[in-house]
Structure formats: structure tokens, C-alpha cells
């Protein structure tokens, strides 16, 4: 089977936010109204219960034009996912659809994935057990893996009426992305295809109307070598020798060190 990926052509988004409602509806997520933030953007960031947000950015371009930039913000499902690398419990994995998913049973709520995500996507939800003690679980967009398994497209894609969101064969998507890039260059000279290679590409590819930084995206995200070494070599070895808990503590030290690599201001605000 050919690889399928999600494509977000932000130049086609009209900001209607049907994707947000469709996501909450399918995934049965609670509403989280926020305080007034001075814009029509509903949520400042993604949360454990709000897996996609349309960002609204009143942007003055370098040539003095005005653009109101919209972006469907959600998990990019990186091919080399920092969250997966950071997880000491192997609760995060890649599916056959290349989506990155969290196994709630295995997740201990340590939050390393939250700290390490290149895009600020993963967040912790707090629950209470029957004794009233709190526990936490990392949550984020699943690319509707449960729908993909049924041969359905992600809920956000189905709800999108302008074809800003597409779920298609990778080769077709890349060809379409390049074609669209050519078409929008006149209006958006800084337009680019966002498919960062430092993390081996993502399974959500964007056509952005301006530089990634304008959208609060890191220009060239990478998973630190220490993380890769940690996950792929040290952790399996260490677990064998020291046991999981000790390794989690060591992991936290490394994660915090790695976190400093993250660019400043990588969130979208108007």
C-alpha cells in the first residue's frame, strides 16, 4: 500500500474551524473555552483536549501588504518524532499509517514527550482515579488512526470544504504541493512547503504562505543526537541493566538539557 499523508494548504483555508468541531466530535473531547485573548483565535495553544486549532495571524508582509494568515495547527506526525524518542515507557509508537500515537495504558504521565515535542503539540490531561488521586496522561491528535483503520479519512479532512485539508497518497500530495506552490508564489513570495528534513519529514505536510517562523514553526527542527542515542541505544541497554525507573530519571535530565535547543516564540499568536 502506498504511503498516505495529510496535506494542509493554508492558502485554501478560510478559517471556518469546522475541522476543530469535527475533531472534538469524533474524538469526544470536552469544550475548553478560554479567556478573551484579543483575537478571534479560540485557543492560544493546543491542549490535551483540543487537538487542532486554527491560528489567526494579522501579518504585515515585508513588502507592506496585509495578510490575515490562518493555519490548521495540529500534530505533524514526524517521521523522527521527538516525543517517541523521549518516552521512557515506550508508550509512543508509529502505526502502519505512519501516525504517531500514544498508548494511554502505558503512559505514566511523566511529561517528557511534552517537553521534547518540536511543535508544542503533546500536552498532559489530568484525571482522577476512584480514590480521588490525580494522574496524568499525555494526549494529542492521533491522525484519527481509529478511522484510518476503518478505511475512513481523518475527521478534520472530511469536514474541510475548501480542500485545504487533504489525506492522499504521498506522491500525489507532494506533486500537488509543488504545483500549488507555483500558483501561490505571486501573492505569497515567501510561500514554502514545510516538510522538515531534520526530522526525516512529517506525515502532515504544509504549504505555508510565509516563512515557518511567521507561523511560529521552527525553521529546521531536529531531534538532538543525545535523544536518538538515548532512545535507540542507551535506553534498551540501560533498562536491561538498571530498570525502568532509574532510566526515567536519567531521561529527564537529558530531556531538560535538550529542551534548551527549542527555538524561542514558537507559538502562534496574533
Amino acid at each position, binding site marked *: 500500500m502506498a504511503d498516505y499523508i495529510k496535506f494542509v494548504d493554508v492558502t485554501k483555508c*478560510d478559517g*471556518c474551524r469546522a475541522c*476543530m*468541531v469535527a475533531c*472534538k466530535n469524533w474524538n469526544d473531547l470536552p469544550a475548553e473555552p478560554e479567556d*478573551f*485573548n*484579543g483575537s478571534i483565535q479560540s485557543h492560544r495553544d493546543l491542549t490535551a483536549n483540543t487537538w487542532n486549532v486554527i491560528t489567526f495571524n494579522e501579518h504585515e508582509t515585508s513588502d507592506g501588504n496585509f495578510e490575515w494568515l490562518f493555519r490548521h495547527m495540529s500534530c505533524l506526525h514526524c517521521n523522527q518524532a521527538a516525543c517517541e524518542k523521549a518516552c521512557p515507557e515506550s508508550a509512543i509508537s508509529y502505526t502502519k499509517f505512519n501516525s504517531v500515537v500514544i498508548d494511554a495504558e502505558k503512559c505514566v504521565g511523566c511529561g517528557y514527550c511534552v517537553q521534547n515535542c518540536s511543535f508544542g503539540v503533546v500536552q498532559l490531561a489530568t484525571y482522577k482515579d476512584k480514590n480521588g488521586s490525580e494522574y496524568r496522561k499525555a494526549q494529542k491528535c492521533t491522525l484519527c488512526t481509529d478511522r484510518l483503520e476503518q478505511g475512513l479519512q481523518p475527521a478534520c479532512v472530511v469536514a474541510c470544504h475548501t*480542500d485545504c485539508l487533504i489525506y492522499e497518497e504521498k506522491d500525489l500530495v507532494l506533486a500537488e504541493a509543488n504545483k500549488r506552490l507555483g500558483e501561490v508564489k505571486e501573492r505569497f513570495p515567501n510561500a514554502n512547503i514545510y516538510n522538515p528534513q531534520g526530522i526525516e519529514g512529517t506525515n502532515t505536510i504544509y504549504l505555508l504562505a510565509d516563512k515557518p517562523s511567521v507561523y511560529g514553526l521552527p525553521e529546521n527542527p531536529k531531534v538532538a543526537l543525545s535523544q536518538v542515542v538515548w532512545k535507540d541505544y542507551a535506553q534498551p541497554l540501560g533498562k536491561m541493566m538498571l530498570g525502568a525507573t532509574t532510566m526515567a530519571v536519567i531521561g529527564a535530565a537529558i530531556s531538560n538539557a535538550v529542551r534548551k535547543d527549542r527555538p524561542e516564540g514558537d507559538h502562534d499568536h496574533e
Partner: protein
Amino acid sequence: MTNHWNDLQYADALMVIGANPAENHPISFRWISKAKQKGAKLISVDPRYTRTSQMANIYGQLRSGTDIAFIGGMIHYALENDMYHKEYVAAYTNASFIVDEQYSFEDGIFNDYDETTRNYDKTKWAFKKDENGEIVKDPALKDPRCVFQLMKKHYARYDVDTVTGVTGTDKDTYLEICQTFTGTSETGKAGTILYAMGGTQHTVGTQNIRAYAILQLLLGNIGIAGGGVNALRGESNVQGSTDFGLLYHNVNGYMEVPTGSDQDSKYKGFLERITPESGYFSNKPKFYTSMLKAYYGNSATKQNEFGYHLMPKLTPGKDYSHMRLFDAMYRGELEGLIMFGTNPVVGGPNAGKEKEALSNLKWMVAVDLFETETSAFWQKEAGADPAAIQTEVIFLPACGSFEKEGSVTNSGRWMQYRWQAIKPKGESRADLEIVHMLARKLKGLYENSPKQQDMPMKALTWDYGESDHPDIDMVCREINGYDMKTKQQIKGFGDLKDDGSTCSGNWIYSGFYPESENLSKRRDNTNEGMSNFLNWSFAWPANRRILYNRASADLNGKAWSKDRIGIQWNAAEKKWSGFDVPDFVAAKGPDDPTFNDPFIMMAGGKGALFSGGVNEGPFPEHYEPYENPISNAFSSIQLNPAVKFGEKEMNAQGDVSEYPIVATTYRVSEHWQSGAMTRNIPWLAELMPHMYIEISEELAQEKGISSKDRVIVKTARGEIEAFAMITKRFKPYKLKDKTIHQIGMPWHFGYKGIATGATANRLTPHIGDANTTIPEYKAFLCDVRRAK
């Protein structure tokens, strides 16, 4: 819509003015996007930069209430630069008609104006006729008294500098819009105009839309795929409700309501008054009599004038629209009110006063999904003193759309049947059931009354079954109409008779339910051509998808463009055929003298550049809104001279000296109407949880307002407090003599539900259009300050 949603994809240029489809009709963008993908230019004209503006190729800023100046300037541009469709204009419009010598226009006033009544004598806007009673014409369009030349003269004053000095549009942008849109005058090209309440909700609302229609006729854009004047309806079934006589002055199918005048004292006299000599409405007696047969069945006989006297009559000249009803309520003249899904305490103009008026009612019945600000107007939370209000309020819980069966008619006139998805919650009932139960109960109460005045209730046929749930199929069959003797369904309105042998509840829908099946239930999505989907649902009239589609073909009956085929004359088969149902007599060939008369509903068959039908004049003329920041640049007449004022106490007016800032109201994607539904749905409420005022950076700086501050907006009617949203999307208008600020705000909010906030309509004026009395929600004056 003259056209329909799917058809938008065929436009070469789309001008959105007085609408914001990306936010308020999002699904339309599926089709608009397709058009853009093919290279079409999208133009957004709006007081502020909206989500639609971001999707557009060109954005033009327009001060609220200046559409006629804007479009008048485009008409001027088209005429001056030869950017109009000459053949189309000469043959298909009334451009060549000679206007009789009574017509004049001077300093904002047309001939035969009566200042005391604020009325024109519209019969004095007429065409010159020869000795045979035929209209005199000049096909060369050179005669200074022909419509074309008079129109040219009228709009000569709308030069680009005067226009942009009034509208505040950047001059270069304005010229780019003119050039782009009038470019669709080229044969084979199509441009469409999309409008909504931003066009209609003005004291000059009707003339705004007239201006769009005139421009489209000049460009040859009516009747063709990708063209048209397209009203984006504000509610899923608002088209259907007006089709079915929702407005006080219409019965079903846009026919007149009788009045108590002498002329109307007999059915014959009434029919004579309402039936034109030519055009398709010359068949009106057939439609009207068939409707009376549907209402009164066997009680409608030739002897009793088909039950005509059973119909309620209006007082001649009296306005019974929303604002005038509230005026009457305010004066204590109304006892009771039944409301189906309406919330005037949030949605009505000068809502604070309308709320006050409600307490003069003896009783009110509210049918709604939720208790609204209106049905709770008497409660403490509403700021009322319950002990002081004697109104008895009865609340009936209603079904949501998924809980009931029936049809809705969309903006494209498609009547689409819907089925019940889930059983209603609790005791809630469908509107249809509530009306059915009420009608049966009332008929029962009057059953044995010998009184003459109770006859209308007794004679009313109501044979939709004996249970509390009406037989909807019976209702559908009656709407279509049938032969009274054989009970066979009629095939279409062409079969309706004026002798009482047929019935039809609504002539324009006649044909949706022939003997074979209810066509509104069809779901065949085969595209037979030009995306008209003729076997999907049913479009009135007669399943025609594009109105006036005769005009899609040239003077020989051949399509103007092979890429834009509507219907064409097939000489071999001697009939019109193509991708649509002809909006024309199918067998009318080139040898018929009316072969080139596409506008079959108009007397004379020509598109009306000049019209005697509108209250303030044959050509749209710019007047300032009721509350305005500048003197009218086009004449010394400030306000539309045909506008009526209504109850003085309801209608406080602010002056620019005290209220220097223009304000407007609008909707957002996430809420619907007064928010009664959407503010109660958590997933929508979280997307738009707060009431806010959009303020430009420049005004914010002047007033010392920062983002997220609480601000107070004040008008002559009242004040509200909300969050400040400082935005680059509002810009001050540089008008000819001064710079003017404008603010805007959504009108969805009230104190009930999950998402709550101040009600914008506390601010809006209680005055409306001179023809429809739709309130002027879209342009008024205010002042803004930071809340302490």
C-alpha cells in the same frame, strides 16, 4: 439567488458585497474555491477585512451605507469606458424604452414627490406610448429620453473621486475593482454578485440590490451560468419561508394580500388590481383561485368568490412589518404574540425598547429549543421586575431540525426533503405538529358557531389526519396541487385553472409533486451538464436552476459561449433545450415577436434598468443612512425621502457631534442568528465565547484603548460593554472632507446559554428600508470609550 450554489464555480469574477460567505456561508467556498482554481477573480467589498477578504484577490474598503455610491460609480465606469454588453443591453433590457415627459430628477428628488406623506406617485414613472398603446423605443439608444441615456446622465455624477470620497475606498483599488468586474461584459464571460444582509439592512436596502441588478444587466450577466444576482440567505429555510408567505404583504408564491380598499371589496376588483396585462403574472387569477381552493376546499365556490371574503384583509397602506408590530405593542395595541424560533430581545433593532414593548402584551407563546432572552424577558436576570409584568408567557419546547421531517428550500431555490434522524427529546414537538394541533383545537372551538366572523376558521380545510401528528404527505400534495374532481396531482403551474377546478397551495412549487413522486426527495447526483443536477431535489419554478436562462443565448437562440450553455434554440426540433429547464416558452421560436424577451415575469419581457416598482425612484440614488457622519455628496437630501419613521419613542436618533463613529453589526461562523442554539452548544461556544468590539489600531490609540480592555459603546439608544479587539482589519476611512472611524461587532450575544455577552442590538436604530422595512442594522453612529 437567480442562480444556485454549485453554479458559482462557473464565474470569471465574483464580487462579494454586503456579505461574508467565508464566515457566514462557508460551504459556498467549496464552489468559490473551484472558480478561483480556474482563474476567477474574487472581489471582497466590506467595511472591514473579513475571512472572505483574505480569500479574495482584491479587497475594497467601503464605509457602511454607501453601496449605491459604490455600485453607481461602477455603472458610470461601465458606461464611460464602453465596458457593457451592447447586444444584451439593447435587446434584453428596457434600455431602449423612451421614458415619458413627466419623469425628472433634480437634487436627489424624482418627480411627483409628496413631502408630507413621504411618498412618490409611482404611476408617474412610466414609459411613453404610441397611439396603439405600444412603448416607444429607440433601438440605437441615442434618444436623450431613452432609459439608457437617462441612466447615463443619472450616474454621470458618480465619478470616481466623488464616489471614493463618500465610500472611503482607496481610489486605485476602486478602479481595479471596476476594471476587473466590468471585464465580464465581454461576450462569453460571466460575473456574479453575492450579497446578504450587508446589502439589505439599510434604509436604502432595496435600492442597493436594484443597483446590483442594474450593473449585472449592463454586463450581460443575468441568466447565464456563473452570473446572476445571488442572495445568500441567512437561514437554512429563509427562502422557503418567504416563498410561503412569511412576509405580511405576501401570500404564498409572492402574491398580494387583499386590503380593505374599495377596489379589493370584490375578488374580481382585487384580481384586476394585482394582475398585470402582460408577463407571466398575467396568469395570477389561476394561481390565486387555486390557492383559495387549497385553503377553503369545497367552501370556496364560484358563488362566494372562491372564499375570497374569508381571507384576512390589511388596512390599505398600513405597514405590519416587525418594527411596526413592536411600535404597536409599545403603544399597547397588541394583546398577544406567538413566536416560532425568534428572539427579538437579542435580534430586534433597538432591542432594549423592543423588550420594554413585550411587557405590554397580555400573553406570549414562545416556541423554541431553549428558553431565550425573549421568552425570559420578564425575569429578574433580564433586568426586569417580575411583579410589575402581567404578561403570561407560555413556553412550548420545539424539535431541532434532526428530530423532524419536512423540506427546506435553500438560497438556490432547491426544495430538499429531509427525514427525521432521531426521535425528539422529552415533550418537544415539531413546528408543524404545533400548528396542526393548534389549528385542530381552534377549529373544534368554532365548530358550532353561527357567527359570520367565525367563518374563516370554520371554512378552513384541515384534512391532514386525525392524530396530533399531521400527514405531511397530504400537506405536500396540496402544496403541489391537484384536480379537485379526480384528485390527480397536477403536473405544473401551467395546468392551474381560475374556475375552481384545481387547487394548489403555492403555485411556484407546483410541479414538485406530480402523480409519480415527491421530487424534493430525489438524490440523483448525476451532473448532466453545467452542474445543474436536474434530478437532485426540485428547484422552483418548474425545476429551473438558473432564472431567466433564455438570456444565456443570443438573439438567434445560440449560446453566447459554448462553455456556458444554458438553453439553446434547437431549430430541427423546434424547441429550446440544453442543460437546464427553459425559463421560457419551450416552443417559442425566432418567428415569434417575443423571441427576444427573456424576462418573462416582467411586463414587456425586458430586464428593468428603469423600474417604476420601487418606492424611492426608478434609479437607485445614494442617500446617507439615518445616522450619518457626513453631508450627502450627491444632493442636499440626506435621508432616503421615502423612508417612514414609525413610533417616535422607539426611534431615537444620534447626531455626529455626539456620536462621531460609524458602527455596524455582523455574524460570525461559529454562531447563528441570536445565538439561541449555538450559544448553547459547547463546541461552538468555545470557538467564539466572548462578545467583542472590533476597533482599528488608529481609533484605539486615539481613545487610549488597549487590546482586551473592556470598552463601552454608546448610541442614542443605549450602551453596552464588551472586550476590545484591536485589529488591523478595520482602517479609518479617508473621506473627501474628513477621516471617519468605524467599528463593528457581532450581534449574536445575550445573557442566556454558555457563551454570554452584551447584546449589540441594544445599540441599533429602529428604522428601516422604504420598501421592506428591514431594519438598518448595518450603519449607525456611536461613541466608544474605555470602561473605567
